[in-house]
């Protein structure tokens, strides 16, 4: 039954993508509203996945790959629904929903292998749960920053090449740049605190040298890139250079996620 619900959610994701795509092509408000309604339904179902066990006294810990990816997808979808009020670009919504759907599908794939990767009881603590939650929140913020940076680069290219045929509605260059900055401004402290908590937890619970663990190294790399972005912004740097830095920084996020799947010594996913 549970699998049917999850499969159903994948179809709903696809349907919402379909509606948003048609809203982009046909510029009809009705398609956009339908897409919103279907996506909202997906979000409600995902919320139920997290809330129902909580009411039963067995809250989700978000410590397995399955729950983490699902949590990431839930955050991404929820914030996309919220942001639609201000960012009315169908391109942004499409890409955000596509990423959310990808994470959701990966979660489903990972869910079937979850039993082998369950966290030992002795290592679980509230500190760890907060660490993972904050890390995922920062990933969502960086995802938005990446999307805004890509929109900036695309808009910049069309304006530089004087191409007037693009049908999609994009925010102005300045707006996308500001939105990317705000997203990073939110993501960086979240990541920093998450790293700090993670290091405290590791110091308390682990008996080996964890500083050279690939996951930790790439996490610091992420923090460095995004920190550098903020420093450049404060110095008044704007434009293409900053957008490309944002894209590069997001690559470190992807590397960080994939590293934890295979090369980490103690991050079980």
């Amino acid at each position, binding site marked *: 039954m549970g699998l049917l619900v999850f499969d159903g959610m994948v179809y709903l994701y696809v349907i919402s993508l379909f509606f948003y795509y048609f809203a982009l092509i046909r510029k009809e*408000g009705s398609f956009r509203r339908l897409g919103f309604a279907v996506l909202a339904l997906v979000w409600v179902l995902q919320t139920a996945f997290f809330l129902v066990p909580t009411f039963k006294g067995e809250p989700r810990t978000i410590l397995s790959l399955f729950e983490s990816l699902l949590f990431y997808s839930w955050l991404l979808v929820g914030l996309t629904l919220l942001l639609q009020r201000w960012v009315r670009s169908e391109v942004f919504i499409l890409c955000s929903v596509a990423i959310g759907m990808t994470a959701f599908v990966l979660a489903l794939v990972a869910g079937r292998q979850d039993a082998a990767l369950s966290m030992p009881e002795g290592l679980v603590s509230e500190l760890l749960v907060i660490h993972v939650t904050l890390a995922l929140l920062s990933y969502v913020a960086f995802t938005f920053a990446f999307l805004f940076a890509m929109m900036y680069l695309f808009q910049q290219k069309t*304006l*530089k090449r*004087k191409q007037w045929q693009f049908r999609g509605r*994009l925010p*102005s*260059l300045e707006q996308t740049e500001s939105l990317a900055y705000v997203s990073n401004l939110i993501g960086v402290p979240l990541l920093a605190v998450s790293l700090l908590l993670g290091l405290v937890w590791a110091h308390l619970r682990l008996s080996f040298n964890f500083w050279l663990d690939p996951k930790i190294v790439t996490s610091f790399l992420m923090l460095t890139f995004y920190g550098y972005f903020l420093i450049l912004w404060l110095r008044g740097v704007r*434009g293409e250079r900053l957008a490309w830095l944002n894209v590069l920084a997001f690559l470190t996020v992807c590397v960080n996620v994939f590293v934890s799947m295979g090369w980490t010594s103690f991050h079980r996913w």
Partner: protein
Amino acid sequence: MHIVVIGVNHRTAPVELRERLAFPEPALPQALERFRETRGVLEGMILSTCNRTELIFVADHVSRAVEHTERFLEAWSGVPQAEFRPVLYVHTEEEAVRHLFRVACGLDSMIVGETQILGQLKDAFFLARDLGNTGSLLNRLLQQVITFAKRVHAETGINDHPVSTSYAAIELMKQVYGQLKGKHAVLIGAGKVAQLMGQYLQDARVGRLTIVNRTLEKAQQLARSVGGQAVPLNALIDVLKDADIVVSATGAPGYVLTKQQVEPLVKSRSRRLLFMDMAVPRDLDPQIHQLPNTFLYDIDDLEGFVEAQMAERLKEARRIEGLIVAEVEAFRQWMHTLGVIPLIAALREKGQTIHRETMESLQNKLPHLSERELKIIRKHMMSVVNQLLRDPIQRIKELATEPQAEQAQDLFATLFALEEYLLEQEMQRPETAPPAAPVTQEVRSEVPAPLPYRL
């Protein structure tokens, strides 16, 4: 009853004729009063703009009403019929309805998709309605037309696309900066184009506007009119240091700014810089566009932008034409249901009369029935009447939208012998539009509640 639209517009008549046929706004109430008295016109309104003059009315007999309306137009404007008849268009029935939808959506305008016409149509309708010139037909039609046009403007992109180079320039500025509030715009030149752009920038609420011109006096004059400040041409480079937008529209034979002059400026700052070259020959070196964080658009680019936008508008217009077909059909179906309302009312009246008479007869023959027994019998007899009438009423409603609706309605009236009841309804109905004499009492008509009618 028939819907008719007659008129002239920018396509059919030259401006010299249109301006003579136009109805000045202060004279509209009087014109509407006289139009109401025109023979054959049951309901009417006048739409008069710089690009069209149209008389929209409901007539009992089309050709007679058109003839009288043309006489009214001749009498009012003083233009002989022989002069305006060749350029006058006459739309009737569905074509008239379709025309109104197209006009309201801006599809019949000089600039396709413009929204001003909707406001003008609304004003014309509300004035006519408030003066009692409209009735259920025009009220319903215009309500549907206005609602549809509003929806179209809100949901499609037809009026999103600028159609002049000046608007295109502002649109491109917004694509780079979003809102122009707080931005510093520099205007090079003080001629007509510079004045126009200065006005647009002021309307766009740009934060600061600096006018740069070889002749300082002219720059100061322009600055005063657009709320900016003026500087001489030799201060241009200094002013550009903190500019966001530069609009150049001088009559200079060569470049006012070259890439070599702008490059050090761009390197020393990290903010974007947008140049608009509105001059022919060009004022700004095209190579400026290649600098980082810098954009330069000349007149050709702006015209290309406008062309692309017009193509989008036309695509949207074609889509809206498709939507209009459904709206016209919906209105046509509503009009056909108008005919069945009196029939259904007459049938129900007859059913209730039969019920009442039967109950009276029953009470005479069985006087000892208790109140409770009478109530039960009354209720069950009414139920028999309602059940018998339900199917015929449903069928006649369905037939109202069929091509043979009128014949079906006549047969219905004959089969159920409703002539007497229909005549009674006719006699009870208040008088509608007078043939010649002015109306002595004000007819106030609210826009009716949406149909279908409740029985």
